[in-house]
């Protein structure tokens, strides 16, 4: 476990711009809105015949995945390539660590290859923050999920999807459903939603999958799904890790689906125009019914599209923050 106190001391530059993206916690509403606005511009690049732009041309982005994730890796790789960066994908768990190389050695080696950005996924909370504190100043670090701590780009792609679909956050009630205890996504979503002014945030889960003192994050807790879904506008389902079934936190998949799976019957309790989201990949018949996942109220595929745009936005902004910081530090700067 790494320490990750006061993230904004390290993730913002002296002008308040993003120079790493480690967590949504503590970021201002203005900065989160800037991420969403920038991402909006990238979503619209889909209209172009050539879906590529030169912003990170000549830069080297290294996807440092200490924990496997095909989907997140693919979207980060595509985002970097659409920005014209050179991309290196490294699965560290099967290379350096097995050879006894320390994390610091790995970072120094990659820096010596003149890398400009590390996208980090790690099973330990605070790993991205630790790496950001170790790298040379010109390298930007993006957190692609660390332990139970944060998954800020996933949260921001959810925010973008909601904003594009609903327009704003203030009048809406949100429900986050599933394994809150182990979910870095839920944590990042709650921080972002609170900062962006959501009217009400509810978490719905069995007691065994709820962190203690979760109310302190400013959410309302429900263990009964039907009660928790009453009149909500946006339902954010979480992915259930299969290993939770074997660790006695849950009785069985079918029992979980019966109580907390998103079904047409349960969706009827929500607002008539409520939408359903899921970070994917979905477990059909465990977290969500196929009729809903593939139905008109599902935003799951929009989330995937918007995920590339958000990752392009934070990569561009973090690199921009590094550039500006470098300018400010330069002796000839005004």
């Amino acid at each position: 476990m790494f320490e990750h106190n006061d993230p904004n001391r390290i993730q913002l530059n002296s002008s308040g711009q993003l120079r790493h993206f480690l967590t949504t916690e503590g970021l201002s509403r203005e900065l989160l809105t800037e991420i969403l606005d920038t991402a909006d511009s990238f979503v619209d690049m889909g209209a172009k015949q050539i879906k590529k732009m030169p912003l990170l041309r000549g830069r080297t982005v290294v996807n440092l995945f200490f924990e496997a994730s095909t989907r997140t890796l693919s979207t980060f790789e595509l985002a970097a390539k659409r920005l014209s960066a050179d991309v290196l994908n490294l699965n560290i768990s099967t290379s350096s660590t097995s050879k006894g190389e320390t994390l610091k050695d790995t970072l120094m080696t990659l820096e010596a290859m003149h890398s400009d950005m590390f996208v980090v996924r790690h099973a330990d909370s605070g790993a991205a923050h630790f790496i950001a504190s170790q790298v040379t100043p010109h390298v930007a670090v993006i957190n692609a999920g660390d332990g139970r701590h944060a998954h800020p780009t996933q949260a921001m792609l959810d925010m973008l999807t909601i904003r594009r679909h609903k327009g704003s956050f203030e009048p809406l009630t949100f429900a986050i459903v599933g394994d809150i205890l182990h979910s870095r996504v839920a944590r990042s979503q709650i921080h972002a939603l609170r900062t962006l002014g959501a009217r009400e945030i509810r978490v719905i889960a069995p007691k065994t999958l709820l962190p203690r003192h979760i109310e302190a994050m400013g959410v309302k807790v429900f263990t009964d799904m039907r009660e928790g879904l009453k009149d909500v506008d946006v339902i954010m389902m979480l992915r259930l890790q299969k290993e939770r079934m074997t660790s006695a936190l849950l009785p069985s998949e079918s029992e979980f689906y019966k109580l907390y799976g998103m079904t047409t019957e349960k969706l009827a309790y929500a607002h008539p125009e409520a939408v359903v989201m899921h970070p994917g990949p979905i477990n059909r018949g465990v977290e969500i019914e196929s009729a809903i996942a593939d139905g008109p109220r599902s935003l799951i595929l929009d989330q995937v599209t918007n995920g590339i745009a958000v990752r392009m936005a934070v990569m561009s902004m973090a690199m921009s923050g590094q550039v500006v910081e470098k300018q400010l530090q330069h002796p000839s700067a005004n």
Partner: protein
Amino acid sequence: MTSDNLSVDALLDSMGKQLKATLEQRQIENPLIVGIRTGGVWLAERLQQQLALQEPIGVLDISFYRDDFTQKGLNPSVQPSQLQSDTNGRHIILVDDVIMSGRTVRAALNELFDFGRPASVTLVTLLDLQRRELPVQADVVGATLVLGPNQVVKLSGPEPLELTIRQRT
């Protein structure tokens, strides 16, 4: 030309006539007008009316195509570009408020080509400040203006469209 006779309406009137003549000479019919945000968009809207073109104008925000990202970073107020039509094979009229170094036009051309391969691009600009750094020339120019080393010119709008020359702060 000095600031005393920088009437945007008068310049636009002259530009519209020049542009019509240029299009006739090049035998261009049904062009698509594209403005570079922000000033170029205001001017493109006016030229579209003058030429009585029915198609909505296109809008380019060249922030992601600038060549000074490594010096200045990202423009925080970037907005999406919007081109209504497929630009493949289209005759484009590209409009900006000012041409100086030519770098903005270069960025705009790069972005334009990512939407498709146009048949031609005609460049229209309200002011030419010269000081070119790239070999880019406008086909239609409202006026040529020579500024002092510490002077800057700004187009405000959209209604009314006005030019002001100020000392750089």
